[in-house]
Structures are given as C-alpha cells and as structure tokens.
C-alpha cells in the first residue's frame, strides 16, 4: 500500500475522505483540501473489498446451489434442483434433536451466564476492592486463550467426573468463555447508569436486592438483551469446546456438521452437509440481524460517545 501511494507523487489530501465515485480531476491539491480523484489506495481498498466479496458470495452461493442441486459434477450448474437433500439431511442426522440440543444449550448458557455475570459486572464497574485487578484478569483470561488450551484440560476433568458426552458437560464448558463475555459486555452498560439513581433508592431504604430488582434490572434490560444475543451467537457457533466434550446425543449443530464432514469413509454426501450448513447459516444470520437491531457493535468499545448520541 505504501509503495502504491508513494509512486503516485502528488500529496494526497485526506486518506479518510476519498470520494470513489467522483472522477473529476482537480489540478493542484493543497494539503488539507479534499481530493476528488480516487487515489490508488482507494482503488486498492475497493479491489480488495471486491475480492473479499467475490469469495464470500461465491462460498455462500455455491453452498446454496449445492444444497439444492442434483448431481453437480463438471458443469456450471447442477442438472436439476430439488429440496430432497434437506428432507434427507433432516432424517439422516436427526436434525430435530440436534437443533433441540443446540437451543437447550444456548438458552441454558445464556441464563446461567447472565445470572453469574451481571452481579460480577456490577461490582467491577462500580466498586474498587483489593485484588480487583487480579479478578478482572481472571475473568479476561478465558477470552484471551484459545479455547483448545483450556478446553482439553477441562474436557479431561469432565470425562473424569463421568460427565463426558452429556448435555451438562456441554453447557458447563460453554459457560467458560460466556461468563467473562457477559461481564465484558455488561460493564460499559452499567457504567452508563447514573449512580445517583441507586444512591437515591438506597437513601429511601431499599436494600441491595431491591435496588437490583426495582432499579437496575429495568435499566439494564437492553444491556442484558444485547449480552444474551451475543452469547447466543457465540454458543451456537462455538465449535472447539463443544466438540471436545459432546457425544452423539449432545452434539450441537456445528459439531454435528463437522462430524458429518469428517465421518469415516470420506464423510456423508456433500449435498447433505451443504444443506445442513445452509440451515446453520440462515439461523445464525437471523440471530445476528436481530442482535444488530438491539446492539450497535461499536458500542462495545466506544462507550461514552455512543451513549451521547442516543
């Protein structure tokens, strides 16, 4: 990128504000003046983005086509289309129970991690206490470590406890990254609430429990909703941890698809897997689109600015 821009010579005004559509040439560009010419960097970025989208759309559409296609070998498109693979996959992989497991795990993880995480987030947002740094690091670590690194010892413990391949184990392992995640998401939400409201309630004689149920909870509902949806996305998409402890009766959708792809003897028919993958992606996208309606992704990092704009 640097060489691209250097070779073009003229001082380019304003990298962040290019107007890619405008093609008028302005003769001399003073520093600070907006360039009306799409600079090489702009083209470079747009070309990269385009390539990214080509791959993305290619991947999506080819899986889509594959899941509907009958006998697709050496041609641009399959010979004919049908929905047989979907009904086939539904029966073959017992999708009703797989989706049931996925939802059970997801909702159990959401409820438990909110119950555990919100009070902890409240304390971390409002109080100072000894060893606070250490506690925060403790809650941050599972997010910073690759799931496999703590997943393997954790799964070993689970198997030793006789919990291997059970639903309980799947829920427990999924809590490990979810609780810190709820804490991380909720802390900015709690910081946004004016502490004087709580003080007023406490002055009026409300105890901590009543402050929580009557004052904080209603104010925190948007935050809790946002955190829950993000946990839902993470849990439904979590592969590694679930894979390490789940068994045939406790596989979530991702793991079921992976097992189908890597099953002994070259795996299942490709189209069956494609149709499952389509089901997975569509449900994930629905969740994410719902999530984006409730929470702005930038809110998680840029807290104060976002709240001011509301």
């Amino acid at each position, binding site marked *: 990128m640097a060489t691209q821009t250097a070779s073009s010579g003229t001082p380019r005004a304003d990298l*962040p*504000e290019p107007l890619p559509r405008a093609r008028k040439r302005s003769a001399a560009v003073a*520093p600070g003046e907006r360039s009306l010419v799409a600079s090489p960097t702009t083209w470079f970025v747009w070309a*990269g983005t385009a390539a990214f989208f080509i791959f993305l759309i290619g991947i999506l559409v080819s899986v889509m086509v594959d899941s509907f296609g009958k006998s697709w070998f050496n041609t641009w498109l399959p010979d004919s289309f049908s929905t047989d693979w979907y009904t086939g996959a539904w029966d073959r992989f017992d999708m009703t129970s797989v989706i049931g497991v996925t939802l059970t795990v997801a909702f159990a993880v959401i409820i438990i991690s909110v119950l555990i995480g919100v009070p*902890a987030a409240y304390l971390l947002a409002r109080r*100072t206490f000894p060893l606070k740094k250490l506690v925060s690091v*403790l809650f941050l670590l599972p997010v910073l470590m690759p799931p496999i690194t703590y997943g393997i010892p954790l799964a070993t413990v689970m198997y030793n406890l006789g919990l291997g391949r059970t639903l309980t184990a799947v829920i427990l392992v999924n809590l490990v990254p979810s609780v810190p995640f709820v804490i991380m998401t909720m802390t900015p939400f709690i910081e946004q609430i004016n502490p004087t409201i709580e003080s007023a309630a406490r002055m009026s004689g409300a105890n901590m429990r009543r402050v929580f149920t009557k004052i904080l909870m209603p104010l925190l509902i948007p935050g809790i909703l946002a955190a829950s949806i993000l946990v839902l996305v993470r849990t439904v998409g979590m592969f590694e941890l679930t894979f390490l402890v789940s068994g045939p009766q406790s596989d979530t959708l991702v793991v079921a698809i992976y097992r189908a792809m890597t099953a002994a003897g070259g795996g299942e028919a490709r189209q069956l897997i494609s149709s499952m993958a389509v089901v997975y992606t569509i449900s994930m996208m629905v969740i994410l689109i719902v999530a984006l309606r409730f929470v702005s992704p930038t809110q998680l*990092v840029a807290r104060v600015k976002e709240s001011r704009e509301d």
Partner: protein
Amino acid sequence: MSAPSIGRTRATRSTASLRHRLAERGIDTSLLMLVPALVFAIALFIYPFSYGIGLTFQPSAAIQEQWGGGIFANYVAFFKDPFIFDSVYLTMRLALPAALFNVLASIPVAFKLRHRFRGKKLLTTLLVLPITLGTVLTAQGLLIFAGRQGWLNRFLLQIGLIDQPLTLVNNYLGVMFSLIISGFPFAFLLISSYLSGIDPSIEAAAKTMGADWKQRFRRVILPLLAPGLATTFILTFVLAFSVFPSARLVGDAMGSTRVMALMGYRAFAEQIDYPMASTIAIMMGVVELLVIGVVLLWRSFMYKGSTGGKG
C-alpha cells in the same frame, strides 16, 4: 494454607472495627455478588487448568519409555518429537500472517468507511456478516467454490488466465482463505470502532498546521490507534492461532496445516493420552501468551492516553 487462617483468627478477635475498616477499603457484604462468578472461574477455569498442568507431569508409560526424562517425559516428547514440535512452527506460519493481514487490511477499509456515503451501512453489514458463517460452512463453501471443479477455477480457466486448475484448497492456502474470511470481519469491526473513538478535531488540528495525510497518519492517527491495533491484533491472533476445524477440513491436516490444536485433539480423542494432550494444550497457551506479551511490550512503547473521543 497458613496465611488465610491467620487472617481469620485475627478477624474474630476484633469484629466491629475490622468490618468498618474493611468496608472503607471496599470490602463489604456486597462483594458476595462476586462469589458466583469467582466460584465459576475457579471451578471451571483455574481448577481444570492446574489439573491439566499437574497432568503434564504424569506421562503415560509409552511416552516415558520412548522419550525418557521421568516426569518431564511429556515435555521431552513435545520438544524432541519433530511430528509434534513442528506444529508450533506450522501454527505460527498460519496464525501470524493471517492476523497481521487481517489487522493491516482492515485499517484502510475502516478509514474508507469512516465517513458517510451512500450504502455505508449496507457495506458494513455485509463486511460483518461472515462472522455468522462459522468455520464449517466456510470450509464447505471453500471446498465447493475454490475446489478443482469450482466456479473460481472454472472461471479462470474459461477466461484463459490459467491452464491448470489451481489447487486452492486442501492445503496451506485454503486454511489461510478460511482464516481471512472469518477473521477479517472481526478485525474490521474492532478497528472501525477504535477509529470512531478518535476525536476528528485532533486530525483537523493537524490539518490546519499543514500536515499532509501521510504525516497525519504517522504522527496523529497511528499513535492514537496503536492501543486499539494491539488489542485487535491480539484478539485476531487468538482466533487464528486456535484454528482447528478449518485446518482439518480445508487444510492438509497431516502436512502443512498440522496445527497445534489438531495435535492436541489427536492426543486427546484419538490416542486418549490425556497427559500428552494437556501438555500440548498448555504449551499452546504458553506460545500464545508469548506472542501476546511481545505485542503488549510493543504497545507499552507507544502513546498511552486519551484518544479524545472516548471518555
């Protein structure tokens, strides 16, 4: 063991004043709200982790026989067995370039998307959407789309750019594509939110002093963005470093993409050698924390302070 018990006896001796003094330092009954989270963290994270570390010193008989070294046999095996040790290098060869690329590529894209233009929201949504794809669908899609018979090769053959279908999957390249597709949206999301936290007036001030965009980028934006860059790099690196399903599905699982996660899983589920699996997992954590440490060290040399936009 002795330190807390001493504290407790002292506590029973002078309850009233101690409670008061403790409350002043921020210790009171409301800290009990932290207890469930702490219990959870200790039971599900600290305990298994220390259990795993303990397990690494109980090598199986087979490992001990082959590599020797007594209780350190697992570590001896890890460092001396090229089949296992090479996976460190193979993981790095995938994760470092992928994380670097994702972070560096999202900087210009985030810049372009910083200002209002038509279709910005749509473009942002489209860029973020791949987060939902999941590694498994990405893998399946790459196999179909970029495979020998796939549309990509078919198109390139048709327009005469290549004579032979390119092998883009079932190798290093396939995993790299998968890492970029799943990692880039994430990096982009983080970088653009960090970028939105930089007060535009700082840049405007530099502009009035006659700084061109290169100077503004190097002297103003980059220092302010550096902490965000470090965080983004770390998080993307963790994602890329723990690559597992795609390394197996679109990679060359026993060759160029034999990553540490795969080796750990192999020891865990296929060889049922829990001590060795834990050793690989722990070493994976160590290697990962080393990289994070280097990044944090770099960050400590950069500007630390307000970015103007955020509180």
